[in-house]
């Protein structure tokens, strides 16, 4: 393997030096405008002829008044103040920030898909329906499930949908009154407990054993006939495969509960092992993680939910299906209803379909193999410098800790994160999972080359070495000094709340 290259990191420009970018409202100049419209030859009825006075606004909404040129340069300058996957490594744990293929960008712009009205009759949407049915079938094969809904717009929406399916199943069995609790490990993503509450269940938390797995004894103690099911992430947020999954599934099924699989970490196991074969009944996937659809600065994603056969009749609808005269939209017989205005984040799903076609089944398996190879290599490279939370082979991500560094020289996980920015990398996820002190959760993904991976590891090692050599973390605590702004005062943001330009006091 060649030595690490500067590749994979973004130093200096385009993260422009510490200049200030005014808001677009400050560019505004009365009378300036950019918009233009089609020539329609329609009668030029005026507002007072079209809208009764009681409803009519006398003025206009105070939107920015800018030229197209100033508009473009403002937003382009904003992009220069933004790190992204296209710039460099983005090892944010649990987020699977892999490279987003440009082929999917092109596909997502085809008017043959983007200009289709969601309420058009099925005769006008056969291409869309076929694509969505093919995607659903592929997701079922990957997860070992029977049927899926593509409606949920993100992972959390998928969680809530899955829990409502769990609830509908117990209700159909006449057991909804007594099954009130859903078990969640203390290492779970925060969306899990929040979704449980929204689905009307109570959270029961199960602890983690010394090897980082679910504490089986504690779980058995919680399992009673008031339990609706369990939500698990496997591999867990510690990046570890749940060794006792067979026993867990058995125990939960024995008391009539269902197993919910949080698909946030599915990138570790494509073609290796399937949630359905582990005993899971409900699975959500995050296509923006596993299937490389871009994260959009915080969305859109898509969170399809796949289920075993006994839950299929409860799925949300209407759903795309194969009919006698082509593809159609049908409502499952005991559907819980709609969970999206239309058919889900269709264009995101189209990107996922393309990704699956570009990789094929073998390619997906290679994706997981290399994701796991990268995470293990990275963890071993950091051994001896950072603490390893649970010292076992990991899957697609690893959780290391700055606990010793913090104790010895005051270098916290946050300091590591901020100093990494100066070295040109996006930081990993920090302080999660909550059960690991000074946690640094690193998910390199399979799309980072060995050279980038080595450069990232070197940066981690450099941050630790600098503090050890200085005997303190003063330098790291002053970081970042090369980014558009220095350390941000988030406490002040909450204390002196300014969430619109109109609230600004100056």
């Amino acid at each position, binding site marked *: 393997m060649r030595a690490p290259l500067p590749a994979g990191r973004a130093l200096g420009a385009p993260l422009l030096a510490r200049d200030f970018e005014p808001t677009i409202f400050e560019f505004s100049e009365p009378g300036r405008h950019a918009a233009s419209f089609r020539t329609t030859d329609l009668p030029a009825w005026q507002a007072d002829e079209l809208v009764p006075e009681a409803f009519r606004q006398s003025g206009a909404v105070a939107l920015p008044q800018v030229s197209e040129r100033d508009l473009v340069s403002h937003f382009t300058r904003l992009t220069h103040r933004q790190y992204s996957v296209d710039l460099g490594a983005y090892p944010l744990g649990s987020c699977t920030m892999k490279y987003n293929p440009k082929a999917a960008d092109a596909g997502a712009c085809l008017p043959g898909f983007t200009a289709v009205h969601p309420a058009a009759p099925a005769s006008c949407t056969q291409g869309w329906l076929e694509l969505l049915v093919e995607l659903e079938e592929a997701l079922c094969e990957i997860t070992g499930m029977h049927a899926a809904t593509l409606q949920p717009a993100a992972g959390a929406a998928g969680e809530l949908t899955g829990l409502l399916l769990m609830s509908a199943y117990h209700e159909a069995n006449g057991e909804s009154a007594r099954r009130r609790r859903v078990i969640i490990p203390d290492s779970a993503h925060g969306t899990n407990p929040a979704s449980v509450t929204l689905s009307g269940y109570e959270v029961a938390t199960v602890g983690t054993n010394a090897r980082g797995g679910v504490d089986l004894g504690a779980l058995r103690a919680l399992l009673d006939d008031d339990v609706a099911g369990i939500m698990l992430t496997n591999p867990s947020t510690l990046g570890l495969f749940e060794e006792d999954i067979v026993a867990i599934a058995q125990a939960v099924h024995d008391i009539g509960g269902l197993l919910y699989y949080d698909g946030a970490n599915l990138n570790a196991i494509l073609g290796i092992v399937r949630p359905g074969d582990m005993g899971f009944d409900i699975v959500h996937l995050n296509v923006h993680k596993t299937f490389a659809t871009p994260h959009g600065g915080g969305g859109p994603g898509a969170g399809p939910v796949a289920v075993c056969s006994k839950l299929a009749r409860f799925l949300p609808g209407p759903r795309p299906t194969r009919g006698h005269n082509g593809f159609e939209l049908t409502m499952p017989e005991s559907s819980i209803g709609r*969970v999206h205005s239309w058919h889900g984040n269709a264009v995101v799903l189209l990107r996922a379909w393309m990704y699956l076609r570009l990789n094929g089944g073998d390619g997906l398996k290679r994706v997981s193999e290399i994701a796991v190879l990268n995470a293990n290599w990275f963890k071993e490279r950091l051994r001896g410098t950072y603490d390893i939370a649970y010292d076992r082979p990991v899957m697609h991500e690893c959780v290391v800790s700055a606990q010793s560094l913090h104790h010895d020289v005051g270098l916290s996980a946050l300091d590591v994160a901020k100093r990494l920015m100066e070295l040109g990398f996006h930081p990993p996820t920090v302080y999660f999972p909550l059960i690991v002190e000074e946690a640094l959760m690193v998910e390199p993904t399979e799309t980072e080359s060995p050279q980038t991976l080595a450069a990232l590891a070197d940066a981690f090692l450099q941050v630790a070495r600098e503090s050890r050599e200085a005997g303190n973390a003063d330098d790291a605590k002053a970081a970042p000094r090369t980014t558009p702004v220095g350390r941000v005062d988030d406490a002040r943001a909450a204390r002196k709340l300014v969430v619109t330009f109109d609230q600004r006091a100056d």
Partner: protein
Amino acid sequence: MSAPFVAHTDAEIAEMLGFLGLDDLDGLFGEIPEALRLRRGLDLPMAMSEPDVAWRLDELASRNRPCGRDLVCFAGAGAYDHEIPAVVKAVASRSEFVTAYTPYQPEVSQGVLQAIFEYQTMIARLSGLDVANASLYDGAASLVEAVNLAVVAAGERRVLCSKGVHPHWRRQLETFSRGSGNEIDLVPLSGGVTAWEEVADVGPFGAVVVAAPNYLGCLEDLAAARSLADRVGARLVVCFDPVSAGLLRTPGSLGADVVVGEGQPFGTALSFGGPYLGLFACRLADVRRIPGRIVGETVDIEGRHAYVMTLRAREQDIRRERASSNVCTNQTLMAVTAAVHLSWLGPQGLREVALRCARATRYTREALSSIAGVKLMTTAPILREFAVRTPIAPETLIERLVEDGYLAGVPVREGFEGTEYEGGLLVAATEKRTRAEIDGFAAAFEKAVR
């Protein structure tokens, strides 16, 4: 075996495995019980090259009938065929916006954060309320969250919801009420607008929900909804149309406590229904109950202007089962898109879009209602959409007009079963529609219903 977006050479893989003391890649998975392992290949189509996939996708696209010159769009019902200026795509497809994630690390995320801050300001101004969040999945999701906010704030789970609210949104509200325990009482329509006078129950209720304009296109009397909300002790949730907002008084100025809407008209294509944009605004007093992300202004360590996600203590990753919502990933890219589009429009441009929609809609309405056998279904004032009853079933009519190159509208069915509106046709005309297109549509319509 290879994967198209993996860079590792065989030699590099061997070297990395050597560093780990492993013989082969399978050795990485030793912790997985052998009995669970998938010892066959995934039964999926073989990997295809980029041009082959593009070709296959194009083939599927050819089986769709997209809106455009060959299928002139008169369908709306919450998804509108608006103009998308080139500048919107050019800016919103910048890969710094597209390939970043949630701005957890503000020092390297000022671009997305500031764009969201500007978006929040625009949505607050559009709605006439104090604050807006960083976006939700779609209009329906925003409605569900608004109702959750209202019932939690009021401590009262019962909800009065107008039947004029989009039927899909109502259906979704029902779905999620299975979990939240909210009880939704529907208020019927009369003459196309909500018959608030038929509400005899004095409450208390947590929320009163109304759409203005409503699903049938009619403008609603928000003052009446406000006084009912006051009478039953509820917060008033208004589903607004952000395009009509260019001409109408803001819901906030008419007493709305929470305003939600579908932001698709601002720069997002019809896209078979997604990804769209859930708009959400509320009063400052409710800001600590707001769902999802919100960006605030602050300073950095040296006093420079900076932006950061704020009020994080509400959120699922901090508060877990006591969070105000479970929202994590939202629709940020669509929010940035909307901010660019709204900046391009400006105050006069937005007003012009609304005005042009209203003109095209009036012209279409007059043309269709003069066809023998076609009757207007509502008498209340409308702006950008209207419902008609046709002599033949709307589904049949729509299929016939597709042959002539027009998407005639959306049938009124789901959510209106057993009402006078069932079997109607909902028609919308946006600023894109010309006199020639509408004249052609009306002529084809007349032939089709004859």
